[in-house]
């Protein structure tokens, strides 16, 4: 049996949906941020699969940029989590509703 690129795409879909479930069902902000990283990884896997299958390196350049943006997002996101934790002493998304009123 040969591994075609459809296997990689299916695996990437599964990983993406697990990330979606993490964002929907977890209440710890840090775990939600990690789920977002998982979704970015699933998309990166798709990009690398197509790039290698078509012999075109543009997809891998894009993956490189996505990784840089993910690093920036993690740094700023975790800084926000620390800032909120200082005031509210929690990382529970159901307790963090600063914009509600």
């Amino acid at each position, binding site marked *: 049996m*040969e591994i075609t690129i459809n296997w990689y795409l299916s695996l990437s879909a599964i990983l993406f949906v697990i990330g979606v479930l993490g964002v*929907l069902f977890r209440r710890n902000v*840090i775990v939600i941020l990690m789920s977002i990283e998982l979704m970015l990884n699933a998309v990166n896997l798709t990009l690398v699969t197509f790039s290698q*299958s078509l012999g075109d390196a543009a997809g891998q350049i894009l993956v*490189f940029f996505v990784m840089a943006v993910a690093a920036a997002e*993690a*740094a700023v996101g975790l800084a926000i989590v620390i800032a909120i934790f200082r005031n509210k002493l929690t990382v529970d998304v159901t307790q963090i509703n600063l914009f509600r009123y």
Partner: protein
Amino acid sequence: MIGPILFSVFAVAAIAGALGMLISKNPVSSALWLIMTLFCVAGLYLTLNATFIAVVQVLVYAGAIMVLFLFVIMLLNLAELPKLNAGDGKRFLGYVGATGVFAALMIATSSALGVLPEPVSVQVAADTGSAVNLATLLFTRYALPLEVIGILLLVATIGAVMLAKRRFV
């Protein structure tokens, strides 16, 4: 054939790591499960002959981003949170939404079954994913985006420091 075996091992381990991240109660073990998934994705990049991206994946994701996550988790000294206790309706909606996303992705994948062109040879793929080829592109054709990404990282660093220093309300 070692390719299918490697793919199966990495794929199963990646899904197991992702599920472990989703299920485990403790954020530290969540992060460690995610690190396993990231390493397996790096292994999958290697099976695709994308050597440069595989190395960058381990360096940036497993090396930098996850260390940042673990550092913040341990800095905040978190107690375990109880399970999300939303009403059954919300939970059900969440499952419906996730199933919908999965169905859409699988429909897109299966519609590509007969349409995709034949993959290029292993030699061409290895050349495409090599550090030489990607570095040449990054410093010639994609030089401007590379500079912009550098500025973005600088801004993110300054923003993170400002956010963490200041006290809000």
